[in-house]
């Protein structure tokens, strides 16, 4: 649906050359909700703007709907854009126009017949839940309502792709959630491919199927949300995961570590999927002469799969603890001694 091939975007300023995107390869399948996360300045904004050529890549290829966008004439490109809707962090509505006219704008530009426009806009406002606001002006709306207008406008031409540029970053948590649910509904109901860029990992966790982590213009990690959240490979990804997973080891446990000896060890156990449902600890307690002390635990659901994180202290003979670890490993559960985290 959307493919980036070796896309590089360089900004030339008189004093320096900034690589906003550095040889980015990315592939987004039809019907996916794909999230791109990065800190500000990482290049995610340039990335999403290359999908509808609001910014032209310095080199590389952007293929949307099997069309090489960079090879299109301005006229063909404008046509291609009617298949790509976009919503923005600051909504970017026309303050001088009513909600109705704002939503109708893409259709007015395409010179559609009046009654067709009227019907379509009504339909869209119904869908986003703003049927009664058609004659209001953007200034009379709340942030969440403005974004709904933005969404209705983006969907006016029945695009197959929706680009979301930090669409919830200016909204409060509750409104953010409502907008995310609306995006999910759009994805499911109309089978629209959604590309979201954000710096909020919670947005990714909430609705994305896949995620790419971008740092200094490079995609450093990409995969399903589950894989990236459960096994982040890079430091940047780990930092983002931390913001929503709360799997940091509390300070009190660090203090306990100082007393760690042969007979008293602390481990981190990560449960994924089915294993999260297994009564692992009680099995251990039954079969091994060790005492178990749960120090910290969290469990989250990622794309419908439970994901648990437990920090436990085993007290007992070293030999027995080793057997316990072997047992846990046999259950295909990741276990790691916390010792290494001390440094």
């Amino acid at each position, binding site marked *: 649906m959307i493919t980036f091939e070796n896309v590089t975007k360089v900004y030339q300023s008189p004093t320096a050359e900034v690589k906003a995107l550095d040889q980015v390869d990315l592939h987004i399948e039809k019907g996916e909700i794909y999230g791109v996360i990065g800190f500000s300045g990482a290049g995610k904004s340039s990335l999403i703007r290359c999908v509808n050529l609001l910014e032209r890549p310095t080199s590389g290829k952007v293929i949307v709907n099997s069309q090489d966008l960079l090879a299109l004439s301005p006229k063909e490109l404008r046509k291609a*854009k009617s298949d*790509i809707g976009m919503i923005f962090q600051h909504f970017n*509505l026309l303050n*001088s*126009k009513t909600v109705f006219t704002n939503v109708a*704008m*893409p259709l007015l*530009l395409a010179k559609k017949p009046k009654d067709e426009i009227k019907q379509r806009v009504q339909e869209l406002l119904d869908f986003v839940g703003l049927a009664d606001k058609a004659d209001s002006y953007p200034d009379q709306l709340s942030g969440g309502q403005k974004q709904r207008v933005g969404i209705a406008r983006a969907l006016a031409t029945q695009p197959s792709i929706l*680009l979301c540029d930090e669409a919830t970053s200016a909204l409060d948590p509750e409104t953010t959630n409502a907008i995310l649910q609306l995006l999910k509904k759009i994805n499911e109901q109309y089978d629209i491919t959604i590309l979201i860029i954000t710096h909020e990992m919670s947005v990714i966790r909430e609705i994305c199927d896949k995620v790419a982590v971008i740092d200094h213009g490079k995609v450093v990690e990409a995969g399903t949300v589950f894989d990236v959240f459960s096994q982040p490979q890079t430091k940047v990804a780990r930092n983002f995961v931390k913001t929503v997973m709360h799997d940091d080891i509390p300070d009190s446990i660090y203090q306990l570590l100082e007393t760690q000896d042969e007979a008293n060890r602390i481990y981190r156990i990560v449960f994924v999927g089915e294993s999260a449902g297994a009564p692992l600890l009680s099995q251990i307690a039954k079969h091994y002469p060790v005492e178990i002390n749960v120090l910290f635990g969290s469990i989250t659901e990622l794309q419908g799969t439970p994901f648990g994180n437990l920090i436990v202290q085993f007290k007992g003979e070293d030999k027995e603890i080793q057997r316990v670890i072997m047992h846990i490993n046999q259950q295909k559960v990741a276990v790691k001694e916390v010792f290494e985290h001390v440094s």
Partner: protein
Amino acid sequence: MLVEWPQIVEALWETLIMVSFSLLFSVVIGLPLGILLVITRKGHLLENTFVFNVLNGIVNIFRSVPFIILMVAVIPFTRLVVGTSIGTAAAIVPMVLYAGPYIARLIENSLLEVDPGVMEAAQAMGATPRQIITKFLIPEALSSLLLGLTIATIGLVGASAMAGAVGGGGLGDLAITFGYQRFDTIVLLITVGILILMVQGLQSAGNILSKKIRRR
């Protein structure tokens, strides 16, 4: 009083003619010029450094000549256009040359205030450059544009009085020839009073209209 009321009414009429026609022609010149000054800017819709620099330079040149000097300096051009350098019609020529670039600057300022995000949304929708100007840029700036035009109109009222001093007719002419040169204080006060009322009226009308369009 050395003048009769009909003379004052006629002078007022001449002033109104000078101001309204020069405003009309100034907008005809200033609006496209102002739009070009915005869209040819670096990073804008139709970036073109050469066109921008040329237009910017021309506007600056006209803006830097004081009106009274401009009026005298363009006399040959005025003769070429209206056939004479004296009278109401002749005064309109330098007034347009004065107010056109001024209006271009005011329009440029208003258009630059438009949220770049709105332009980005327009481009994302696949709007043509013409559509972006007519359906996004101008409507969003309209309220501020009107305030700018109000300022320009008031500037033209002032210019028309000066044009009167070199034979353009109008209230300024009356004030100079009778009020100043022949010491008729009453005529002077009446003309100044009319000018004050005119400016007040224009500013109020501009404010009301602009507010109505802003819709906030």
